[in-house]
Every structure is written in C-alpha cells, then in structure tokens.
C-alpha cells in the first residue's frame, strides 16, 4: 500500500488515548483544536487551559503546555497567563457546566475585558463528568438526573444561550456557534476554531466558539442518534451562526 497520507494524528495531540466514551465529540474537538495548532505552527507557543468536566484530562491528551483550571475559572486562569505572556497563544476549553454555570462571571468578564484569548465552549446540555445532571444549557423538557421529570421552567428556568449573551458585550471580536455533526459541520467547526485562533494572533481580543456537542452516555442515545438530535432539536434552541465578527 502506497500513496500520501492525507489524514493522520496531529502532533499537538499526545500519544495518550483519551478516555471519553465511545462517540463523544470531545474527541473530535480535541482533534480539531490540535490540527489547527499544527497547521498554524503554534505548538511550541501555546498554553492551553482545560476545565473541570469530562475534558479535565485534556492536559494529558495535548502535547502543548497545559494548565488544569479549577471548575469554571478557566477564563480567569487564561487571563492570568495571557497577561504575563502576551506573545504566547492561549486557549481555554470548557464544558457547559464549567463555563455557563459556575464560571458565568469569569466568562462574561473575560469577554467584557476583550481579553485576547480564544475559548472553545463544548455545549452538551449536561454535566457529563458527574453523571448527567441538568446543565444551564439543558433544553426545557429534557430529563437529567437532577430534573428526572424533565427540565421544568417553573422551577428550573430556561437554558442560557451563551453566544447571544456574550454578543451584547463590546469586548469580543468573534462569537460563533457550530455543530460538528455533519461533514459540513465538522469543516465549519474547524474553520471557526482557526478564525478564533487567528484573531488572537492578530490581537483582536476575545474570541469564542460554541460547539453543540453530545453526551451519548447520559443522553442515553447511540452516538449517531445524538448527531441527529443535535441537528434536529439542539440547533432549533441554539441556532448556528456568527454572532460577532469585528
């Protein structure tokens, strides 16, 4: 067998295989982030910040320098890094419990400050790591272990649309929501990540990519079913698109 290799493991991914459940999009997103780092030649200039959530071990899976932040505080940690190393490339990678619940203040303020960092936001509508509880992004009616009869807006309120929320601020340079659940979606996602990273290199300030992701385990669906659900249901509540680009 000969030919040129057109797809291989990016260098920015380490050799350690991740422990995500089968079909979990965290794996795809790690690969995309790593590929973009490779393609932009950033590996040796990067400091990544990972969250508390299923992707807590991202520090093992990436081969760039990594910091494990406390739950929800990745934007603050990334701020600390970027302020001391303005010439390095700094990204944060966070789940929706991490970013949109406990980390709400840190996210809003990093965005408001126009902090020159790139944030990848994995919205899978649940707390994967702790066993499938309700997240701030859980759609009304969806069942989770802490809303066993389905999220009831009367007592548990409504999901937060983080892109729309941050788009009201003057700090962000780029805000987009993507869904890597189709061939086109995967390509768009990579383009979005690339643009978010490039913006930082261009000194444009805060950029933010929300990824409609999945959790086959706690959604109790087959991976391919989660893709369908995202395309048909999640995107209705969380419309895809570019919210800020300046």
């Amino acid at each position: 067998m000969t030919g040129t290799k057109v797809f291989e493991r990016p260098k920015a991914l380490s050799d350690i295989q991740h422990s995500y459940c089968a079909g979990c999009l965290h794996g795809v997103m790690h690969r995309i982030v790593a590929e973009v780092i490779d393609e932009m030649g950033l590996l040796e200039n990067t400091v990544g910040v990972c969250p508390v959530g299923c992707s807590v071990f991202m520090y093992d899976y990436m081969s760039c320098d990594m910091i494990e932040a406390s739950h929800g505080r990745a934007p603050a940690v990334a701020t600390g890094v970027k302020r001391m190393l303005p010439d390095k490339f700094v990204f944060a990678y966070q789940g929706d419990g991490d970013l949109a619940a406990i980390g709400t203040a840190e996210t809003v303020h990093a965005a408001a400050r126009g902090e020159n960092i790139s944030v990848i936001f994995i919205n899978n509508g649940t707390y994967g790591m702790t066993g499938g509880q309700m997240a701030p992004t859980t759609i009304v009616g969806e069942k989770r272990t802490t809303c066993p009869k389905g999220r009831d807006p009367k007592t548990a309120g409504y999901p937060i649309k983080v892109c729309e929320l941050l788009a009201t601020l003057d700090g962000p340079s780029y805000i987009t929501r993507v869904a890597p659940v189709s061939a086109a979606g995967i390509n768009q996602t990579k383009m979005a990540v690339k643009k978010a990273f490039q913006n930082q290199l261009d000194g444009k300030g805060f950029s933010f990519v929300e990824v409609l992701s999945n959790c086959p385990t706690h959604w109790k669906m087959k991976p391919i079913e989660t893709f369908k659900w995202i395309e048909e249901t999640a995107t209705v509540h969380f419309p895809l698109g570019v919210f800020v680009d300046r």
Partner: protein
Amino acid sequence: MAFIEINKELCKGCELCIHFCPKKLIEMADGFNSKGNRFSQVKNNGESCTGCALCAKVCPDVAIEVWR
C-alpha cells in the same frame, strides 16, 4: 487508489465512521480489541474508497488514517 487504516486498538466502536462513509465501506468487526471494546473494520477491502476522509474527521478517537 485511496485507502484508510483503522487502528483497532484505538477504536471504541462508536460506529460514527460507518454512518459517515458515503460509500458505506466500513462495518463493525466481530470480537473485541485488547481493551474490551468492539471495533470497526473496512469491508470489501476498501474497494471504491475515494479518500474523502469523512470517516477520519468524525472519528472521536483519531483511529483512522487516510492515504490518497
């Protein structure tokens, strides 16, 4: 001629590549890998693979490499 290689040990058997392959060239293998996971394999010797790499791009475990 394009072809893919699925690393059986990295595969977790999520079946996403099977659904994404436009030529339907991938299937689940029988048995388990050393980690106890089911895994996928190329069928028909990969006949008619275009090297589109969709399988590789959707694979959460980066288990697939593509040649063209």
